[in-house]
């Protein structure tokens, strides 16, 4: 490792390569939590996740455990910690707290906005410095909370750009694209969170989401199995196979096809991969979706909405969104070599049921715990992480593909080819900025 490199993590990142310590070093990981995950907006959940007063879900922001809940006055994001002696207030994944959060240890209770409601035998505090109005005796809300089209974000520090500015048009496009596909302009989350643990660094996952070089290699077996089954299905039933097979058979596309995609690098590390799924066939479901959107918005706007073909949007550092399929994966780094993903999908309000079924099929085949796709991805992520841990084989990770060729326009970097490693370079440029700030 270069001398003093950990003192200034910016030195770990060069324009076309990064040092392996970015992925494997425990001290770098702790700095990432402080400087990236506690200093940027982090996705918490969707408003419809907590439809009723008292509903809550728990999640992670950096090393903090947070609660998303609904009070009479809307949603709140609170630290999951009792101000009395520090017990975690909500132990499970989700539930309904009723009118108050009640600590299981000594029964201090809190309103759904976190403010202290009642303490048993309160006389004990007479004549002490305890003050029920003092915020330090209430559950602490996240320093900042923001909502964009129903998607709730929180930031565990003061200052910096507001959510809209920080998302910018690159990341806002992810949520606009999902919501616009609904004739009502809104989505509703499906109350099911698949949680999958990856034994690898969180950045390896994000890099993979926009890696158009890997699918035909990593997913070769799944692509061929699906393409074979499409034929078998047709032969045996005389009918067209369900769309799920096509999601997987797409992995057999040749390199040229992947290379024809585009990637876009936006400020703050948000990165977009232009789509390839060809989700606008002339089947009855798509046609009825077109009709519903035309009725709501007119033919021209419908066409504009459905021609938006984005495969992945990365909201750096916390989220991978697939808008045309209405799903997202939130990234919760638990250790340098351990990453939790929280995987959700959405219903488009007012859209035909078949559109939901398409989303559900993708959720099953690509994102469920029985996925034949991530089976090989996660294996590769782990192989990368284990390789990067090694000492003697080399110190650097190469992002040289099409390096130095990325055109920049209005602060947005594009790529000359779909398989360019521009997305990785873009994310690391943001990483370097976050990690160098205030050091």
């Amino acid at each position, binding site marked *: 490792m270069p001398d003093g490199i950990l003192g200034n993590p910016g030195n770990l990142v060069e324009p076309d390569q990064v040092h392996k310590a970015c992925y494997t070093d425990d001290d770098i990981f702790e700095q990432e939590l402080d400087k990236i995950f506690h200093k940027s907006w982090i996705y918490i959940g969707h408003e419809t996740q907590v439809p009723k007063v008292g509903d809550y879900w728990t999640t992670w922001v950096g090393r903090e455990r947070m609660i998303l809940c609904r009070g009479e006055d809307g949603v709140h994001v609170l630290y999951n910690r009792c101000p009395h002696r520090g017990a975690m207030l909500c132990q499970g994944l989700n539930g309904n707290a009723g009118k108050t959060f009640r600590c299981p240890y000594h029964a201090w209770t809190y309103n759904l906005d976190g403010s202290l409601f009642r303490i048993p035998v309160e006389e004990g505090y007479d004549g002490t410095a305890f003050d029920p109005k003092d915020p330090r005796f209430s559950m602490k809300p996240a320093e900042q909370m923001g909502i964009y089209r129903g998607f709730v974000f929180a930031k565990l520090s003061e200052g910096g750009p507001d959510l809209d500015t920080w998302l910018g048009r690159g990341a806002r496009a992810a949520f606009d694209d999902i919501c616009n596909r609904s004739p009502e302009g809104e989505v509703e989350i499906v109350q099911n969170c698949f949680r999958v643990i990856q034994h690898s660094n969180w950045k390896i996952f994000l890099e993979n989401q926009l890696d158009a070089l890997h699918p035909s290699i990593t997913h070769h077996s*799944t692509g061929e199995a699906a393409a074979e089954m499409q034929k078998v299905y047709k032969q045996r039933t005389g009918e067209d196979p369900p769309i799920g097979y096509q999601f997987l058979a797409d992995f057999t596309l040749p390199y040229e096809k992947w290379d024809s995609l585009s990637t876009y690098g936006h400020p703050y590390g948000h990165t977009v991969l232009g789509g390839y799924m060809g989700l606008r066939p002339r089947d009855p479901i798509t046609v009825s979706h077109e009709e519903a959107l035309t009725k709501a918005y007119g033919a021209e706007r419908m066409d504009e909405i459905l021609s938006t073909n984005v495969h992945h949007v990365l909201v750096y550092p916390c989220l991978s969104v697939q808008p045309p399929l209405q799903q997202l994966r939130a990234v919760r780094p638990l250790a340098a070599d351990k990453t939790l993903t929280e995987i959700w999908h959405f219903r488009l309000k007012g859209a035909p049921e078949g559109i939901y079924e398409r989303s559900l099929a993708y959720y099953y085949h690509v994102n469920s715990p029985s996925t034949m796709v991530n089976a090989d991805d996660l294996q590769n992520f782990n192989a990368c992480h284990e390789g990067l841990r090694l000492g003697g084989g080399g110190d650097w990770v190469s992002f040289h593909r099409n390096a130095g060729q990325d055109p920049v326009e209005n602060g947005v970097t594009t790529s000359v080819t779909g398989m360019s490693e521009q997305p990785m370079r873009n994310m690391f440029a943001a990483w370097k900025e976050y990690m160098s700030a205030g050091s």
Partner: protein
Amino acid sequence: MARDKKDKKAKKPKAKAKNHRANRRANGLDTQRAVEQFLYNQAEILDERRWDDWLGLFTKDGKYWMPPREDQETGEGMPNIFYEDLFLMDMRVRRVEHPYAHSQKPKNKMSHVIGNVVIESEDRKTGDVVARSKFHVVEFRNDNQRYFAGKYRHHLKKTKDGYKIRLQRVDIVSAEGPFDYVLQYWL
């Protein structure tokens, strides 16, 4: 089969009630034994990765279903951990055996233990059975051992070739917990 015929004949005589009772008890034990043997056989097929035999265990419209919650009543139109017909199972087999299935190098191995087999119901006319049982599975892959446990509920159709699975519901106790890596095939 032979016993089926005997049952029908046994219905004719007048001393019906008495015989009937005895037959039912005998049938109960035979069904218990037959279902247990079926479940042991299924477990062995999976442990030995005999995929053709696995696909042969199901009826043409048979399904393997692992819901994400115990209170979920259908697999249709809902998120599932597994919900597969013969076509999807066939695809999974093709992938697992594909030379470029990276996560099958090395292959995973499983060991099943099945117990607490309870016959919930047996259709007198068809011989179809609903049975529940418990399983413990150890899976070994890449120097790593994982444990799974849970409950099976088999809807079995009686055919001339023995039982076939119409629906196998699998509730793992850890269904709502985080998955450490994924499940490459069925438990």
